[in-house]
Every structure is written in structure tokens, then in C-alpha cells.
């Protein structure tokens, strides 16, 4: 299959809104192309190809250099388009006059498996020349895909779920199996595609991989009508959801993003291998305050997750724990079809066995989650409100009689999050958005009062409706004080209610505080800037929770 065909697929998928039509298009595509190219297509569509060969900035500089184009003009165009790969694609139009479109039939396999990876082996001069050559030899329709792959920004409105459904329909095999096969490091190859579409389910191969995760929905009012005894209550930790698997003595640690992260947490892998049983556990990885038995902030976990082979001192400074929520498989027996309350009994049973019978102490790195037993719903609410005290985000409520299915199915698990903290703040800066929001001012910075001065305390991008974004964009253009590149400083006039999940001291910010997940929850047109909150109020919030 040529890159050309994939470009067509991309443009089709990009312009179809209906899920069913997307599935049809994908099915047709898989049927009419070679396994190796299908494998690459799946690799690209599932977002596994986000390796960045060169940066967007590099791409823009290179174009500017080759075609003697002013850098500032490219930057102005970028503000309108919001994507470096697309800007360069649009600017390349009619520039590559060479009739020698030798690469018009290049296959995905050759481009992705050879041409692009080989760029990394070249020195800068050779690399630039090679990119220029490719631009000139590639038909214009293919420039976008090529530039996007180069800059690691290939994305299209297709979820893994959609790919899963398409393949499942193609070969008439359960989605769960396909989703299972799609997990993990599926390197593009004929073999991996044939494995994917193999109509015989090979248990041994499947065994090394995690189960599809079951996800919680937002709380629904109707559950309050049910008896509190129908549900199991747990704290909602703010860590990384994972499956901890031990099969045939081999431990693997999978994130929900389908990444195998054994290398980042070697101490956990080592400890768990001492356990005599095989198992699949669903749980959460956290950096743990063993003294107080609560989680440390997520920011500490970030110090671990991207670091492979951490040193002993890092392991000591950021001690981790795996908190198991659920037991999905024990000694080769898949127990996902057993009711939650019975799975919990099994989990507790095995945990106490492991604690007592493992020669190595495992409790310094592994535990099962504590359950909460509210008397009634108002009591549950009280627990929820207390969740900030132990650094959790609220409660997870699980129906006791349900099996462990997959995805965000309704009526099984709910998250009951603590209400956010809120402050009214003044809009002081705006920046052009990127991607879908290009050409509009959609990235905002907000400030709080300190005496007579407004001090920036948070940036937020989300929360406004499209209509509000457009209205605000108009206002921003009319009320700009100064422009600094893509950023505008604004007349302090607009007040917004900003909600966030956490607040803590920060030396890095002028305001002295950092907030987590700030978002706009209301445009307070009814408020004047003098009604906005002060930094003092923010400090008070911080004291209240600590």
C-alpha cells in the first residue's frame, strides 16, 4: 500500500463524524491492503508512533532556510493554523515543482520502517537535504502525513476502541480479545498483524498481557435511591492506575495507557516475584507516606514514572506502594466473572496468605485498599468531604454484585469526587490556542490581588463553551494592552471563577502557590475586578486543608 492510500484514509476518517461509518471505512481499508501496511496503519492510528524525529520548530526553520522564507511570516501563519506540520504543508504547496515524484508509490512500511528512522543516522546537513528531497519527491497530498509523522504529531479522531471494533467486526471475534491483543508493545510487522487478526485465540500469547481496564463513571443521582449496603466504598487515590501481573513466575506492570513500566519500578517487580501464587491485580501505584499512611502528592510520583532504572537513593526518596483494588485472576483462573464481593473475599484471603507466608516482607511496598463503611448516604458524603485530609480525590463506589467487565460501562463503578476549590480571578493574559483552537485566543492566565497589584496565579484552557470562547476572543482583540509574540496582555476587566483540585506552596511561582487542574467554571460577568479574590484568600484555603 502506498502512503497515498493512507493519506486518503486519514482524510476520510478526518471528515466522517459517525462512528459506524468510520468503522466501515477502516474495515474496507484493512481488507484491501497488505498485512505489513495494515500493521503500520494500526500503529499510527492508535497513536503509538508519537516518537518525535524532529521538532516543529526545526521543521519551520528548515523550511525557512530552504525556501528563503522569513521566519516571522511562518510564525504568523502558525498562529492561524496551530500545527507546525500543517503550516509547512500549506506553505509547501506549489513550492515543490519537481516533476520527479518518485516517491508517489512509497509504501507505509518503507517510509516508516526505513526512510524516516534512517534520518536519525544522518548528520544535520544530510538530514536537511534528505527531508528536502522527500518533500520534492512526495506528492503534495502526502506532505501532511509525512510532516506529522516527522514531528510526532500524527493524530486523528479515531480511538483505540474504534480500531478494536473494526478489527473485531472484520474477523468476527470478541472486542475484548482484540483489545487484549492491541495492548502493549505491538511492533508493526506482518506477524503482529496476523496475530491481531488470527481467528484462533492463543491463550499463551494472551497470557502476558493485561486485561482491559474497567473504568468508573461520574456519580449519578439515582444510586442514592439504593441501599448503601449494595455498594463497596474505597478512597479515590490520585496515582497511576495499573495492573500488576504475575504469570509463570514473571511479573509485569502495565499502566492504563498500555505501557509496560517494569523498568521504572524495579523494587516492586522484585518484591512481587517472591510471592508463590500467580495473579492479576488491578490497583493504583502511589508514592506513599509510610509514617502517616497516606499518599504523597502526585507531583512526587511524576519524579518516578518517567525515570527508568531509578537509583537506590531515588527509590528511597520517593518510596512507592501498589494498592490493590481487585483480584482478576488467580493461579491461571480468570475470576472476572465472579461478583465483586466474592472477588474481594478472595483478594483479602490471598493478601493475608502472602503477608504471612512470603519469606520477604512485602508490606513495605504492597497492600490492598482499605474499605470504608458509611452508615448511610449522608455519612458517605461526610467521608467524601474528608478525603482531602488523606490526600485522596473522593470516593469510588462499586456495586457489589457486578462482574469485572471493561471500559466505562454504566452502573458498575462510580467516582464521587470532592467538590473543587474555587477562587474568582482576573483575566490578565491570553495566548493563541493550537490544534482545533487555532486562530482563537483560548489559553488564559488569571491573577489574584496582592495589595493593589494583580499577581498571576494560574493558567487555564478549558471550561468555556464555544460561544463564550468566540465572545471572549473578540473582547481580547479589542482590549489588548501589549503583544508579546503570541501572548497578549489585557486590560484587567474580566472576572472568572477558577476551580482546582489542589493548592500548595511553590517557590517557582511569583504568587507562591501552585494549583492542580485549574479550569474555568464560570464567567463572572456580574463581578467587577475589585470583587476578585486576593492571594490572602488562597493562602487561607491552603491552611484550611493542611
Amino acid at each position: 500500500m502506498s502512503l497515498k492510500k493512507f493519506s486518503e484514509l486519514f482524510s476520510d476518517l478526518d471528515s466522517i463524524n459517525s462512528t459506524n461509518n468510520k468503522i466501515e471505512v477502516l474495515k474496507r481499508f484493512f481488507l484491501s491492503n497488505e498485512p505489513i501496511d495494515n500493521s503500520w496503519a494500526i500503529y499510527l492510528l492508535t497513536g503509538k508512533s508519537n516518537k518525535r524525529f524532529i521538532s516543529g520548530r526545526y521543521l519551520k526553520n528548515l523550511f525557512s532556510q530552504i525556501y528563503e522564507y522569513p521566519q516571522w511570516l511562518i510564525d504568523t501563519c502558525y498562529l492561524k493554523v496551530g500545527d507546525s506540520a500543517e503550516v509547512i504543508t500549506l506553505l509547501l504547496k506549489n513550492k515543490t515543482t519537481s516533476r520527479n515524484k518518485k516517491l508517489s508509490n512509497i509504501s507505509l512500511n518503507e517510509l516508516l520502517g526505513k526512510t524516516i528512522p534512517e534520518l536519525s543516522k544522518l548528520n544535520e546537513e544530510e538530514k536537511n537535504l534528505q527531508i528536502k528531497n522527500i518533500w520534492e519527491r512526495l506528492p503534495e497530498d502526502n506532505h501532511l502525513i509525512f510532516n506529522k509523522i516527522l514531528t510526532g504529531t500524527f493524530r486523528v479522531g479515531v480511538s483505540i476502541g474504534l480500531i478494536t471494533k473494526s478489527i473485531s467486526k472484520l474477523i468476527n471475534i470478541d472486542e475484548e480479545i482484540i483489545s487484549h491483543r492491541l495492548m502493549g508493545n505491538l511492533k508493526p510487522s506482518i506477524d503482529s498483524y496476523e496475530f491481531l487478526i488470527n481467528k484462533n485465540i492463543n491463550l499463551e500469547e494472551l497470557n502476558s498481557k493485561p486485561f482491559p481496564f474497567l473504568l468508573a463513571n461520574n456519580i449519578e443521582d439515582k444510586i442514592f435511591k439504593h441501599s448503601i449496603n449494595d455498594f463497596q466504598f474505597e478512597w479515590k487515590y490520585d496515582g497511576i492506575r495499573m495492573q500488576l501481573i504475575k504469570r509463570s513466575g514473571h511479573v509485569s506492570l502495565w499502566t492504563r495507557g498500555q505501557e509496560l513500566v517494569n523498568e521504572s519500578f524495579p523494587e516492586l517487580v522484585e518484591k512481587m516475584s517472591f510471592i508463590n501464587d500467580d495473579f492479576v491485580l488491578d490497583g493504583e501505584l502511589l508514592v506513599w507516606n509510610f509514617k502517616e499512611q497516606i499518599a504523597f502528592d502526585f507531583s512526587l510520583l511524576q519524579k518516578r514514572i518517567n525515570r527508568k532504572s531509578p537509583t537506590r537513593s531515588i527509590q528511597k526518596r520517593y518510596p512507592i506502594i501498589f494498592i490493590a483494588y481487585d483480584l482478576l485472576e488467580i493461579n491461571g483462573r480468570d475470576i472476572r466473572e465472579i461478583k465483586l464481593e466474592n472477588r474481594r473475599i478472595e483478594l483479602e484471603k490471598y493478601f493475608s496468605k502472602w503477608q504471612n507466608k512470603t519469606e520477604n516482607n512485602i508490606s513495605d511496598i504492597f497492600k490492598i485498599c482499605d474499605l470504608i463503611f458509611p452508615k448511610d448516604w449522608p455519612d458517605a458524603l461526610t467521608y467524601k468531604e474528608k478525603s482531602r485530609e488523606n490526600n485522596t480525590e473522593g470516593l469510588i463506589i462499586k456495586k457489589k454484585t457486578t462482574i469485572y467487565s471493561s471500559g466505562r460501562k454504566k452502573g458498575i463503578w462510580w467516582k464521587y469526587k470532592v467538590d473543587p476549590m474555587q477562587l474568582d480571578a482576573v483575566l490578565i493574559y491570553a495566548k493563541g490556542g493550537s490544534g482545533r483552537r487555532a486562530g482563537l485566543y483560548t489559553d488564559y492566565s488569571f491573577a489574584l490581588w496582592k495589595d493593589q497589584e494583580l499577581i498571576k496565579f494560574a493558567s487555564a484552557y478549558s471550561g468555556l463553551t464555544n460561544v463564550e470562547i468566540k465572545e471572549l476572543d473578540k473582547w481580547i482583540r479589542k482590549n489588548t494592552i501589549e503583544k508579546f509574540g503570541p501572548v497578549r496582555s489585557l486590560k484587567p476587566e474580566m472576572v472568572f471563577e477558577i476551580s482546582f483540585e489542589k493548592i500548595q506552596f511553590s517557590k517557582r511561582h511569583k504568587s507562591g502557590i501552585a494549583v492542580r487542574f485549574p479550569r474555568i467554571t464560570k464567567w463572572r460577568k456580574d463581578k467587577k475586578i475589585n470583587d476578585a479574590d486576593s492571594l490572602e484568600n488562597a493562602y487561607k484555603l491552603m491552611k484550611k486543608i493542611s
Partner: protein
Amino acid sequence: MRTKKEYLIRYKNGNLYCELADIWIDPSKPVKKALITHAHFDHFTFGCEEYISTKETAILLKERFGDNIKIKTFEYGEEFKINGINISFHPSGHILGSSQIRFIFAEEKWLISGDFKLQKDETCKQYEIVKTDYLISECTFGLPIFKWDESNKIANDISKWITSSPEKTSLLFCYSLGKAQRLLKEISQTNFKGNIYSHDSIYKMNNRYRELGIDIRDTIKIENKKKIDELKGSLILLPPSLSKGSYLKNFKNIQTAFASGWMSIRALRKRSGYDKGFAISDHADWDGILEVVKKSEAKNVFFHHGDSEALSKYLVEKESINVLLFSK
């Protein structure tokens, strides 16, 4: 350098105005005398005592705004005098009847480009290169990311879009005057041979175009209660104003598209809410604007209708052309 008072044409209350002739160009508020470049809504306002335009523009204006507006008409190239200023209309290639307007006074030439394009369009006269000293140009698409494809390529894309979903009704949204007729002309030269329906606002304009000698194919006026089966596989041309709201409930199993120059940008395409976007415009692209600026031989250029910052800087830096700013 002269002050703005001394320019023959300047900006006043957000509109182009020639004080010497006491005449306004496409004014947005009622005035005594108005020159109208073309018949789009945003270039016309009710209540002026007298309008002056080309013959075609006058006919289209009357279709849209009623017979009782007073319009004086002139042929392309025909000079007329107001207060000693020679004024003439010249084809701008935007839509049928659209014009650039040239002013000559005391051997100084001024040219107002009006909305214009250089691309091929069989439904109106080709843009005429007019030499001038001062050029006032639109720059709706004044960035180099805008480069139009040939219109027959777009028409083929549209044809493919319709025929690849034969079970669907294809709704193509486009401006009812100009764009619709141009698309009609182009699409009838593609492989798509199915029925084409048009909304009343477009249907009326089609008729006027035909009366003015533009050969475009017949369409069927879309009625609100068409049988769904009958519309399967056909194309319906609709004005963009109907894309939001309840009008679409008249149809089942549809796919929608918008034909506009802005659709060349993916983010705008996605945000537009249409399934698909076709980048076809009746305005000049970047290269078109540069070509007109150069070929007009203007020493001084003004821009309006668009973001002119980058374009101005580019002309000053790269082409050493004097770009002036309107003081409003």
C-alpha cells in the same frame, strides 16, 4: 508625504470615502451617493439616495433588495465624471457584475480592488489588470498558507464526495450569490450526473444569472417535504445560514460540507461543524494579492477587509512597496 486629508480616497466612519466627489464606496450606513462594487449583503445598505453600479450588479441588487432602489448603471470601462473626477468600473472576477473602481483626478490614479479573484470562473468576467498609482486592496486571505487549488479539482472532489455515498443526501453549503453558481457550473462538468436541488435563495440567483447570459444548468427548487428516497444520492445547495437550527431536520441520512476558502485550515474545518470542507474561494489567495499589487504598478498600497499586518510587512521588506495604513 501627504496627510490623510489630502488623499483622494480615505477612511471615514469605517467606510471608503471620496470627499471631492462626495461619494462613498460600499457604505455600511445610508449616504447620499454610493458606489457599489458588487451585490453581496455586506457591501450594501438600504437608504442611500442614489446607487451607482454595473448593470449586472444592479439587476442582482434589485432581485435581493427590491425594485424600488434607485440605481444608475455603467458598463465596464465606461468613464463617468463626478466633480471633475473620472470614475470607471472594471471586472474584479469575484462574482457576476463585481467590479474594481478606478478614480482619476489631476492625472493621479486610484484603484479600489473591491472583492476580487484571479482564478478561472466561467460565471463572471475575468479580473482585469488596471494600472494605478494608489491601490486600495482587500486582503481577506492575506497569508501565504492560502493557496487555492484549481476549481475543477475541487469540483471533482465534490463529485467524488457525493458519489461515494450514494445512499446519502449531500448538502453543500455555500454563499447563495456567486459561489453557488460557480459551483454549479463546475460540478456540471464532473462525473456527477445526479439531481441537483437548490434552496430558493440560490434558485432565484441562478435564474438571474441565466437571464444575464451565464450558461448554468437547471436545478430543482427544494421543497420542504421531499420524499427521502427521491433525494438519495443527489446534491442540495443551501446557504450557510441554514446549517444551524431546525432546517436540517427536513432531511434524513445526510452528509454536509461547506465550500469556503477558510476550509483549507484543518482546525477551522473541524470547528465548523460540517462533515467536510472544500477550500474554494471567490477571493484572491496570497499569490493572487501579490500579483495584483505588482501588476497594478501601484507605488502606494492600502489594505482593508482582512488581517493585513503580515502582508504589509512582507511587501515592504521583500518587494519594497510602500504600504500605507488607513487612519480610521
